Every structure is written in C-alpha cells, then in structure tokens.
C-alpha cells in the first residue's frame, strides 16, 4: 500500500503534474475548434468518466450511507417502530426498477404519484403567490416613485407584454392595428433576445477566460503542449485520418 500511496503522491497529487494535466486537457478540448479529433474525444470521455465516478462516490458517501445504510444498520441493532419508514421508502424507491419491465412498469407509478402529488401540492400555490408578489411589486413605482424612468418602465412592462403576446395571436390575420401591434411586439422580443444573447456571449467568454488564465499563467507547459498537440494533429490528419462521407469541413 505504501508503494501505491507514494506513486499517487508523486503523480496525481503532485502539483506540477496537476498543472500539466490541467493545461493538456484544456488544449485537448480546444483542439476541437480546429477539427474533431481523437485527442478531443479522449479529453471529453475522460471528463465524463471522472465526473460520473466522482459524483457516484460522493453520492454514496454523502447520501446513501448516512441517510439509508447507517439508519438501517442502527435499526437492525436497536429496532424502533419509526425505522419502518426507511424500509418503506427504500421499497418505494426500488419500485423504479420495474420500469425495466413492460408488463410490470405500472408498479413504479405509485412512487411517481407521491412525487407528482407533492410537487403539485407544494409548487402551484407557492408559484402563483410568487407571481402575484412580482406583478404587484413591479407596478408599485408608478404610485410611489413618480420619476420619468420608473413610469416609463411601467409602460414598457404593460405594453411590451401586450404587444409581444399579440405577435403570437394567430386567430386573426396580422393586418391593420393588430399587424402594427404585432410589429412592435416582435421588436420588443428582438430587444429581449439581443440582451439575452449578449449576456450569454459574455458568460461563455468569461468561462473561456478562466481557461485562458490557466494557459497564460503556465506558459511553459502551454507552449510545449501546443507544439506537441499541433504535431499530433498534423500527423493524424496527414497520414491516419480517413475522410468521412459528410465531414464537418464539407458541411462548412
């Protein structure tokens, strides 16, 4: 065991190794921007495998053991009537496996009935309440703070919502007043989509900046690995890669 621990300490837990791996996997994933290749696939599958493995171990240690295994063990040693609830919910949870059978799939419906009933009973009243709070609070400024900006906001909310809804009103042809209202509606929708798109782009770039920071900080590793990956890609596409029928290049 000591040998294994030493190997782990000097590889996976070694700081230099971690930095090089971080840079390598970042570059492997970015290599997809050039073209789909085995390095990208390796990086993608490694990420998925590690995420799933880590998630499972954490789930087992943090959820299953303290909330199910340990209480059932305790119940075995010192049984109390309320311990039956663990057994009951364990069995209810296990009914999910009946979904694998075509004939007995209905057994799982009882569990789903609990889940849906809880969700409907809890979510609907709370959501409606929250919607009313939001609606009423949103309109307050018109009466409380009569500034130009606050009043105009009120009008944008009311007429913006109305005109956007009119765009989706297809029972009458979009002509005359309805047509003009629908045109304003599409304008409002476009402004909204534009704002969301802008924010999304900013978010995506911000995510990349995190990776760029890693590459920039560890520039020795970045330069060495960029050269090695470039050589690999050149050799792979020159000598080993066979053109598929519908390649991304052809699509482009």
């Amino acid at each position, binding site marked *: 065991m000591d040998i294994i621990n030493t190997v782990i300490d000097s590889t996976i837990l070694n700081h230099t190794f971690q930095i090089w791996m971080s840079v390598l996997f970042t570059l492997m994933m970015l290599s997809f921007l050039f073209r789909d290749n085995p390095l990208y696939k390796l990086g993608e599958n490694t990420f998925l495998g590690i995420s799933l493995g880590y998630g499972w171990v954490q789930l087992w240690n*943090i959820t299953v053991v303290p909330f199910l295994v340990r209480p059932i063990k305790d119940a075995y040693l010192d049984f109390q009537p309320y311990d039956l609830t663990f057994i009951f919910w364990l069995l209810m949870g296990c009914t999910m496996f009946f979904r694998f059978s075509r004939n007995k799939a209905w057994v799982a419906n009882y569990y789903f009935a609990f889940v849906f009933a809880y969700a409907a009973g809890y979510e609907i009243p*709370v959501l409606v309440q929250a919607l009313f709070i939001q609606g009423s609070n949103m309109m307050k400024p018109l009466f409380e703070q009569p500034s130009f900006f606050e009043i105009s906001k009120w009008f944008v909310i009311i007429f913006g919502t109305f005109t956007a809804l009119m765009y989706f009103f297809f029972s009458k042809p979009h002509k005359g007043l309805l047509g003009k209202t629908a045109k304003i509606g599409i304008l409002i929708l476009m402004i909204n989509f534009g704002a969301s798109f802008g924010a999304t782009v900013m978010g995506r770039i*911000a*995510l990349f900046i995190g990776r760029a920071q890693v590459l920039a900080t560890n520039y020795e590793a970045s330069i060495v690995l960029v050269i090695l990956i470039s050589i690999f890609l050149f050799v792979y596409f020159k000598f080993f890669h066979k053109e598929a029928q519908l390649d991304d290049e052809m699509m482009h």
Partner: protein
Amino acid sequence: MEKFVLILKKLDRRWIFLLIFLACIIPFWIPTLFQQKFSTSKETQRVYDIINSLDEGDPVFLDWAFDPTLQAELLPMVEQTIKQCFDKKLRVFIYYPYLTGIGLGENLLVNIKKEEKYKNMESGVDYIHLGYLPIGIDMMIFSMYSDFKSTFGKEGRIFKGIKTFADIKYMMSYAGSAHPESYLLLQRRFGFRMGAGVTAVIGPDFVPYLQTGQLDGMLFGLKGAAEYENLRINQGADKIKNSRANAGMASLTLSHLVMFLFIGLGNFVYFYERKYKKSN
C-alpha cells in the same frame, strides 16, 4: 471592394477562433497595456453595503450552487464575500445544494486560510461547510425554520445562539441556473433577506426580482465580481490577492471588441451584397 468582400465571405471560422483566443490570452501577458477603470453598479454596491452593515458575530448563509464549470465567474464572487465576512468577523455557513461543488468550496477555504490575514480562521468557529443534503431547497428551508442545527447534523461553536433560519442575518445564493428562485418562492412566507451572485447568462432572468425588492442586491457575471473586488480593494484589501476577476476583465473587453468587429464586418458584407444584387 468586391475582392475584399469575397475574402471576408470565404474566411475560415478558425481564424475568428484564433483571434478570440489571442484577445483573451494577451491581456494576461501584458496586463499594463490593458488597464481599465469601470463604475460600480448599484446592485453590487448594495450587496457590499449590506454585508458591511452587519455586526460582529452575525451569521451569514452562503448557498454554493455551482460546480467547477462555472468557477470563472462565480468563484471570485464567493471568495470576496467570504473574505469580507471574515474581515467583519461574521459567522459563515456554506451550504452545497450540488455534490460537485463541495470540493471546490473546501479548496477555496484552504486557499483563503493560506493568506496571513485569515490564517486563524477556524472551521466550526468562524465558518462551517454544511455539506450537501439529498432534499429539495423547499424541504430544507422548512427544516431550517424548525431547527437549523439538526437540519445539517453538524456541530460547532458557530451554531451558538442560532435556533432557526430566522436568526440568519443575510443569505447569498451563487448559481448559474434558476436555482436562487427556489429560495425566492418561500421568501414571502418566511421573510428572510437575500442577495444573489449569478452568471451573465442567467443574470437577466433575475433583474425583475431586484425591481420587486425580492433580491436586495445582485452580483452579475464576471463584471459584478470585478466590481466587488474593487470595492474591497478601495477599503484596503490587498490588490494582488484580490484581483482574480479584474484580471479577466481586460480579456472580456478585448474579446468583445473582436466580436463587434466581426459582427460589423458580417453586416457590411450582407448589406453590400444586397445593394450589389439590387443594382444588377
């Protein structure tokens, strides 16, 4: 002109990727060339002011609803909030609604404690990781309002004087999804005060909650994190150790300029072609 338009039309998309890549990475190599100043939004200022107004020993609840995929935007926000809480000697409770965030949170606290100023911060006294609970936020809130400590099954001096969630003075939820809405749904019923730190993607969805007053303040994307850092730096925090988000701001600006350029060129090609076709 036609030749130029033709070159632009046939431009390989990978040149654009390369330019964006360079725009993001160059500011990290030559930071002095890209120094910039920006104003602080009132939403960020409000979060800072609220935490600043709390008294020594007041408990603050942080909801860590993100994993490493969103750390570029959200980690600097949490880091600054925790440091501000430590400066004010507040008690910090960190809850993880997602399993994959726990390692990130523990790692951040280890790194914060490496700084001379925070080396004496003790788990269970000044802060505590409340861990993950396999229940929904709604059930957790009900449970916290029944008995805060036993909800998480943790021990420590930090719990002294806190019976229910009503004793928590302020809470912040950090997420890259609609997660903070789970708290907002029950806010009216229990009346707790909260702010949020969100990614730029999900940020616009939370603006109405600011207008209604359901959120006291909000940190919006990388810019929000950089503003928060600047607020702390202005109050005497070390600039070198608190510039994680600021370091990315120059990259963000430069990459946006590259994008503006290409959006402009794309529109130019489109309108030029339309005009050319009409005239023929």
